[in-house]
């Protein structure tokens, strides 16, 4: 067996046998599923019905307030306002809508008051405002002799059809799906780098503090040891990710079938129903459309690119992590070196989520999908939107070119650092090590 594969194997086994690794692997999906179930359960709980008193002296508006699951409106126009206010104070009612008497309907634009102990939600305020505005508009129209019904009938609803220049038609929501896929890829890479990069770092520090490092590198080249560590850790990481995926999927399936609630669909479809008022048959056909559209994305090439950028990005960053581990004696000393490593990673995610979503082919998104330290994240988020092949290739070339350079630098620091004990090195000293 070659030396490298020996090291990879040892690192892999060392990681996989580690108790905290095993616990993390099997407990995390349980934790996340439990979290999802709790959130799902909480959101399915009916909120307390809020009692809202309506005191309408004009008599114009009271019929507009229709009780629903959350707000129960009671027509209390006959009751004295002062008493109602006291009732609100005593919390017999959650709130009071007070509409005073006025002759001119126009005045109601500024005359309606909502009285409550705690400030109402923005949604509630908007809802009340639009109810009253609707009635005023209605009355205004009638006053001018226009039949409101006719207006309602004349109102049109527009659906913009989307089509690519290449001719395929597309679904409006597809952009969101692309964003979702891109974000998922980018996020996965970032998490992977942070979790397993620091695992590489810890393992380097461990070898230093165990003082075994000199024994090892009298047998193998430091570069082999570093690469073996990075590869071994990443295989362990991939295994963990796959287990998370499978276990999480199975648990979610079990949870959803046991609790009889599909984690996301009721909320989403209910929303759709409310917002669009469409028939459910249409939703189903739309869902089929989405599925078709996802399948029509070049999934195979997307996945290939994902792997390429994943490998490039992970190796780039984890060799930096390894160098940091080599430069220090213990984990507490890593902070000052970790910050500049985390910075581009965070920047990548930030740019990905802010810029790419708004303008996937804009200058900022394009530039940062070329810069090697952010490209694994930003480019992956751009890819589902269709990126010219030359940009992808350029980005990959830059990434792997930088990767080779960084690994070279990192292995120099690593080579010197693993034999240095004592004082935490300064940046200047690290620079000196590069020249040894």
């Amino acid at each position, binding site marked *: 067996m070659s030396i490298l594969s020996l090291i990879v194997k040892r690192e892999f086994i060392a990681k996989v046998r580690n108790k905290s690794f095993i616990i993390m692997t099997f407990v995390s999906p349980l934790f996340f599923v439990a979290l999802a179930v709790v959130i799902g359960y909480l959101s399915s709980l009916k909120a307390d019905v809020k009692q809202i008193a309506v005191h309408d002296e004009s008599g114009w508006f009271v019929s507009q307030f229709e009780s629903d699951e959350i707000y129960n409106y009671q027509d209390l126009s006959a009751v004295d306002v002062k008493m109602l206010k006291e009732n609100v104070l005593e919390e017999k009612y959650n709130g009071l809508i007070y509409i005073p008497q006025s002759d001119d309907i126009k005045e109601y634009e500024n005359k309606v008051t909502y009285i409550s102990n705690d400030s109402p939600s923005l949604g509630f305020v908007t809802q009340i405002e639009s109810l009253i505005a609707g009635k005023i508009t209605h009355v205004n129209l009638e006053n001018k002799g226009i039949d409101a019904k006719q207006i309602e009938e004349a109102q049109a609803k527009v659906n913009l059809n989307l089509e690519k220049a290449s001719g395929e038609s597309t679904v409006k929501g597809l952009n969101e799906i692309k964003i979702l896929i891109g974000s998922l890829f980018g996020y996965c890479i970032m998490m992977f780098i942070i979790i397993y990069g620091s695992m590489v770092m810890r393992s380097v520090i461990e070898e230093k503090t165990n003082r075994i490092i*000199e024994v090892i590198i009298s047998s193998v080249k430091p570069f082999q040891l570093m690469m073996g560590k990075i590869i071994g850790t990443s295989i362990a990481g991939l295994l963990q990710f796959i287990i998370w995926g499978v276990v999480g999927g199975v648990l979610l399936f079990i949870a959803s079938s046991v609790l009889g609630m599909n984690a996301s669909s009721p909320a989403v479809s209910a929303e759709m129903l409310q917002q669009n008022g469409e028939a459910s048959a249409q939703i189903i056909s739309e869902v089929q459309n989405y599925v078709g559209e996802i399948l029509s994305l070049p999934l195979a090439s997307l996945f290939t690119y994902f792997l390429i950028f994943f490998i490039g990005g992970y190796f780039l960053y984890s060799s930096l992590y390894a160098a940091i581990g080599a430069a220090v004696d213990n984990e507490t000393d890593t902070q000052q070196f970790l910050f500049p490593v985390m910075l581009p990673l965070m920047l990548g995610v930030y740019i990905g989520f802010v810029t790419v979503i708004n303008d996937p082919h804009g200058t900022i998104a394009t530039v940062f999908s070329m810069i090697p330290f952010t490209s694994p994240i930003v480019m992956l988020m751009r890819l589902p939107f269709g990126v010219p092949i030359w940009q992808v290739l350029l980005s990959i070339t830059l990434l792997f070119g930088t990767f080779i350079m960084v690994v070279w630098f990192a292995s120099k620091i690593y080579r010197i650092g693993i034999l240095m004990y004592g004082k935490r090195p300064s940046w200047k000293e690290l620079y000196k090590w590069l020249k040894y």
Partner: protein
Amino acid sequence: MQPILEVKDVLKKYSDKIALDHVSLTIPKGTIYGLLGPNGAGKTSLIRIINQITYPDSGQILLDGETLNLHHIRDIGYMPEERGLYKTMKVGEQAMYLAQLKGLSKAEAKKQLDYWFDKLDIKGWWNKKIQELSKGMAQKIQFVVTVLHQPKLLIFDEPFSGFDPVNANLIKDEILELKEKGATIIFSTHRMESVEEMCDYIALINKSQKLIEGKLVDVKREFRTNLYQVGVLTDDIQRLMVQLSQKFKMEQTSFKSLNNELQLEIDLGSAMPNELLHLLSANGQVTHFMEKLPTVNDIFIQTVSK
């Protein structure tokens, strides 16, 4: 016979200081070679170069007449001063891993391990983790993984530091046995007692330069002081002292003895020992007559503080 290791004019600089200043050494086959020097003299730098952990800026190293290359990793066993093992790994697995890193096949590694575990009576430890072992036990494992690939050249950096006397003795015997079997051993140390006992050759490095190199007896001969310790039983101390002081420089000394004799340390100068002996025996009964040999410690201190 061709030396096993030749260090030729090796220069090693770190950015701001010179670690090895044109050092040359010749290490003959089948010997125990003591590499001496105070802390920071450059011993570890040299050893790391021999192990190809770092590389010299200039100069050459020959192992068995060949320029040092990666194949030689198999031929060298190295126990660094900073030693350690993977704490959470099992003893057997760990030893197998380290042996395979040195290029042994699985079967070979197992065979060697069985031999050594048997020899050192540590068979039951195979499935224990290092962190469950005592320090002395871990040191035995450390020794085994250093020697189990049967290297031609063994390098021990401060081999006995941290060993308890029992283990130190055990390891010492094993090292002597390895030498009998033909291995060459380099000791790097600043503890002189072990050197005195075991080394055939020594080299002294101070401030990145080699100061002395040679057979231990030759070095001692070079540093001989011509001081003799003598003990005489005499009736007339006065007369003896007068006679002696005419010819030699001397002073009172003391050594362990069962007689109540006159104990002196006499500088022979250019005279022959027999002259002194004649003079002494003419004046009484000689109970003790011994050349005071320089200890390695004396040589070390004398050379380093020069």
